[in-house]
C-alpha cells in the first residue's frame, strides 16, 4: 500500500473540490459546493445532513450516476489514486458493484418486485462476467454471510415476501457479492424499526471488520453517527460545514448547524407544570380485530388486545412501539374510525364506543387528529384558509368568522395570516405540518391525537413542531395522545408513556421513570437499540 509523507495510508477514495450544479430553477446555484474529504481503507465516514443538503448527490457522483440536470462543474474524485471516469461513462460498469457498491434507504423498493431475490443477485454476477455455474453457490454464500435464515428460501422469494430488515439484508448481500472496497450506504436504516436498525448497523460493522470494507454512510441522524462513524462530514445546503473525527464532532461540535443536529437526537424533556386531574378520555379493555377477506385471502388480525388507558386534561401521553405493534390501530379506535369488538371508551364521562349519526359527528369536533405525512394530509386544490375553516363551517360557524379565526390560527402556528389564500404545495413539509395543526385546533378539541406527526420531517424541523405542540397545549389546555416509533420524540414531549407490542400495552408509567428504569424487557430492548442513546447518557452525566 502506498504511503504518503506523513505516514498515513493513502486514502481509498479522495474527493477534492467537488462542485455539482443545479438546474436554473433550483433554490440555489449548486447542489454541492467545493466538497473535499478522504476515506481511508477500512474507515467509516458519515456524511450527515438533512433533506436537500446535497449529501446523496455526493454518493451518486462517486458512482457516476448523476443525471444530466446535475452537472459536475469542477473538482475531482480519485479511487485508489486513479481518477474516476466522467459521469455516466460506460467505464463505470466495471466500477459499480465490483469496486464501489451502493445501498439505498428503501430496500424493498430498490428490489424489482417481479423478480426473485436470487435472480437479482445472480444478475450482478452475470453482468460482471462470473460464469453461470458459479453464480448460485455464490449467491447462497453471500445470503448466509448477512445472516439471513434459510438462504435457499430467501433466494426463491420475491421482495414483497420479505420483512423490511430482511430486504435490507438481501440488498447488502447483493452489494457484497463482488467484494467491493467501498460501500456507499444512503440512509439504509431510516425506514426501519429501531431494533431492526440496530441489527443492520451491527451487520455493517461486522462486515466492515471481516472484509476490510470502507463505508460512506449517508444519514441525517447523529444517533446513527455516534454508533458507527470514524469520521464525520456535515453538509448544510450543499456546503461542507464541518469535518472531523467522530468523537471530536460529537462532543465538541464547532458549527451551529452541527450543534443543532446533535441536539435534535436528544431533545431535552421539557419542564412542564402537569395538567389537572380531569379525565378526558378513558378506554377500558378495548379489542380490535381486522377480519379476513371474503375468500379467505387475508388472515384475521388481532390488532389491539385488551388495551386500557386514561388521558387527563392538559397532559401528553405517548404511545411507543414498532411498526405493526397496533399503536395506530389503537388511535383509530379512540377516534371512532374503527368499530371495537369489546371494551368501553368514555369521553368526558360519556360512553362513545356505540355513538352513531349526529352525536358521533358532534363528538368528532372534540377529537382531532394530526397525521404523519403533511403532504397527503392536505387537499392540493383547497387553499389553506379553506382547509382550516372547513371544520368550523361544517359545525355551524359563519364563514366570515371561520375565515378570521383561520387567519389568527395561522399566525399562532407561526405562518403569516396573509398566507391563507395559498395552496399547500407552496409550503415546505414543516410549514404544512403547522397548517395541519392549525386545522386540528380550529375546532378547539379536548383531545388531539398525533399519529407519527413528526416522523416525516427533518430532525431540526421535528424539534420546532414538537415545540409548537407544547406551546399550543399550554395555551389551549387540550390533552395529546402522541403516537411515535421514536423514543427520543416520546421522551421530549410526553408526561406519560405507553409501550405497545403486538397489540398489547406492555408497559406504562411517567416518562422519566420509563426511560430511567424500564420495567418490561421489551422496553429495555427498545431503549438499548435506539442509536446514540449512549451518547446522550454520557451527555446527561457530564
Amino acid at each position: 500500500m502506498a504511503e504518503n509523507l506523513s505516514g498515513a495510508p493513502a486514502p481509498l477514495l479522495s474527493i477534492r473540490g467537488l462542485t455539482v450544479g443545479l438546474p436554473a430553477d433550483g433554490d440555489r446555484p449548486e447542489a454541492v459546493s467545493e466538497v473535499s474529504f478522504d476515506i481511508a481503507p477500512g474507515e467509516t465516514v458519515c456524511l450527515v445532513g438533512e433533506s436537500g443538503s446535497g449529501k446523496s448527490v455526493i454518493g451518486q457522483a462517486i458512482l457516476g450516476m448523476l443525471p444530466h440536470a446535475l452537472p459536475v462543474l469542477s473538482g475531482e474524485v480519485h479511487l485508489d489514486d486513479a481518477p474516476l471516469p466522467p459521469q455516466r461513462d460506460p467505464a463505470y460498469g466495471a466500477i459499480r458493484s465490483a469496486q464501489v457498491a451502493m445501498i439505498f434507504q428503501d430496500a424493498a423498493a430498490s428490489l424489482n418486485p417481479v423478480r426473485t431475490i436470487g435472480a437479482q443477485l445472480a444478475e450482478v454476477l452475470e453482468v460482471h462476467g462470473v460464469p453461470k455455474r458459479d453464480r448460485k453457490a455464490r449467491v447462497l454464500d453471500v445470503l448466509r454471510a448477512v445472516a439471513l435464515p434459510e438462504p435457499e428460501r430467501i433466494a426463491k422469494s420475491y421482495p414483497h415476501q420479505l420483512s423490511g430488515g430482511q430486504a435490507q439484508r438481501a440488498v447488502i448481500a447483493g452489494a457484497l457479492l463482488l467484494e467491493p472496497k467501498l460501500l456507499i450506504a444512503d440512509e439504509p436504516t431510516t425506514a426501519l424499526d429501531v431494533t431492526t436498525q440496530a441489527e443492520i448497523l451491527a451487520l455493517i460493522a461486522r462486515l466492515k471488520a471481516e472484509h476490510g470494507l470502507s463505508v460512506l454512510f449517508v444519514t441525517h441522524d447523529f444517533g446513527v453517527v455516534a454508533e458507527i462513524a470514524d469520521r464525520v462530514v456535515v453538509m448544510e445546503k450543499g456546503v461542507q460545514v464541518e469535518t472531523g473525527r467522530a468523537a471530536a464532532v460529537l462532543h465538541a461540535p464547532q458549527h451551529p448547524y452541527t450543534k443543532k443536529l446533535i441536539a435534535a437526537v436528544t431533545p431535552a424533556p421539557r419542564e412542564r407544570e402537569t395538567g389537572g386531574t380531569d379525565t378526558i378520555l378513558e378506554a377500558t379493555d378495548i379489542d380490535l380485530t381486522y377480519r379476513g377477506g371474503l375468500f379467505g385471502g387475508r388472515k384475521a388480525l388481532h390488532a389491539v388486545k385488551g388495551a386500557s388507558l386514561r388521558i387527563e386534561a392538559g397532559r401528553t401521553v405517548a404511545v411507543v412501539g414498532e411498526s405493526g405493534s397496533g399503536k395506530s390501530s389503537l388511535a383509530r379506535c379512540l377516534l371512532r374510525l374503527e368499530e371495537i369488538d369489546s371494551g368501553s371508551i368514555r369521553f368526558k364521562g360519556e360512553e362513545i364506543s356505540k355513538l352513531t349519526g349526529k352525536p358521533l359527528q358532534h363528538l368528532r369536533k372534540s377529537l382531532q387528529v394530526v397525521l404523519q405525512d403533511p403532504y397527503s394530509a392536505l387537499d392540493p386544490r383547497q387553499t389553506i384558509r379553506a382547509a382550516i375553516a372547513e371544520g368550523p363551517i361544517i359545525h355551524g360557524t359563519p364563514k366570515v368568522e371561520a375565515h378570521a379565526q383561520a387567519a389568527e390560527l395561522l399566525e399562532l402556528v407561526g405562518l403569516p395570516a396573509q398566507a391563507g389564500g395559498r395552496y399547500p404545495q407552496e409550503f415546505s413539509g414543516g410549514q404544512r405540518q403547522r397548517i395541519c395543526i392549525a386545522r386540528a385546533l380550529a375546532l378547539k378539541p379536548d383531545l388531539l391525537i398525533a399519529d407519527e406527526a413528526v416522523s416525516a420531517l427533518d430532525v431540526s424541523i421535528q424539534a420546532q413542531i414538537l415545540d409548537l405542540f407544547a406551546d399550543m397545549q399550554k395555551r389551549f389546555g387540550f390533552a395529546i395522545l402522541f403516537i411515535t416509533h421514536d423514543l427520543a420524540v416520546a421522551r421530549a414531549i410526553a408526561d406519560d408513556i405507553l409501550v405497545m407490542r403486538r397489540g398489547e400495552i406492555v408497559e406504562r408509567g411517567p416518562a422519566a421513570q420509563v426511560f430511567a428504569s424500564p420495567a418490561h424487557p421489551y422496553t429495555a430492548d427498545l431503549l438499548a437499540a435506539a442509536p446514540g442513546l449512549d451518547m446522550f447518557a454520557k451527555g446527561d452525566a457530564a
Partner: protein
Amino acid sequence: MIGYILSRLIRAVATLLITVTLVFLFIRFSGDPAAALVPPDAPQEVIDQYARAMGLDQPIWVQYTGYVGGLLQGDFGFSIHTGLAVEEVFLARLPHTLELGLTALAMAIAIGIPVGAIAAIRRGSALDRFVMAFSVFAFAMPNFLFGLLMILIAALVFGTFLGGDSASVLWPALTLGLAAMGSFARFTRSSVLETINAPYMRAAEARGVPFRLRLIRHAAPNAAIPLVTLIGLSLGALVAGSVVTEQVFAWPGVGQLLVRSVATRDLAQVQFLVLVVAFTMVLANLLVDFLYLLIDPRIRAS
C-alpha cells in the same frame, strides 16, 4: 391463489347471466318484433300469427325461462331472416372478423407499444413530442371518417378500391386499430416513465447492470402489468369499432351481420351476437386476471 381464481370465475358467470337477462329484456321492450317482420300494411291477424309462431304471445317469464333453458342446451334459436341456426350464420362470418380484429390488435400492439416506450426513453425530445401528437390524433380520429378518407384517397390518387372481401385486410385493420394504437402508445409511455424512474432501476444501475438489460429485465415486466389491463379493455373497443369499420369497408364480418340483424329486427340473431360480444369481453377480462397471476408475483401470493 385458489380464492383469487374462484372469485374471478364466479364474477365472470354472474356477468354473463346479467347480460343474458338484460339483452332479453331490452329486445322485448324496444318494439314488437313480429310487427317489424311483416309489411307495414299487414293486417293485425297476420302479425298475431307471426307472434304466436315465435312464442311472443307467451307471458314474459315463460319466454325468459324457455330462452335461458335453450341457451343451456346449446339451442340459440333461428334467424328469421335466413331461416338458419343463428350460430351457423355467425360462424360463417367469424373468420373474417377474427382476421380483421386480430390484425388490428396486432398492429396496435406492434406499433403502439414500441413507439410509446421509445418516447418515454427519449423523453422531451422531438421524437417524443411527435409520438404524443400522433397518439392524440390516432385516438381522436373517428374510425368511420379515417376509413372513408383512406378509401377516397386510394381511389382518387392510386386508382384502387380498398373495400370488399377481395381487398387487403391491412387498411380496415389500420382503421380499426388506430385508436387502440394511440392509447397503447400513450399508456406505454407513462407506464415506462414511471418504471424507469423507480428506485429499483437506480439500484440496478448502481449494481452495474447496463441500460439495455435494465430496460428489458427490470422496466419492461413492471411496465407491462398495467398494459395488460388496457389491452384487455381495448378488446371491447375493437369489437364496437368493427361494427363501423366493417360497414365502411364492406367487410363481410360479424359487425356487418349485427348491423343488418338489428335493422331487420332479427331477434334471435341480435340476441346471439350480443351474447357473443359479452362472452368475448368476459373471457378477455378473465384472461387478463389470469395473466396477472403469471406476471405479478404479488397477486400470486395473495
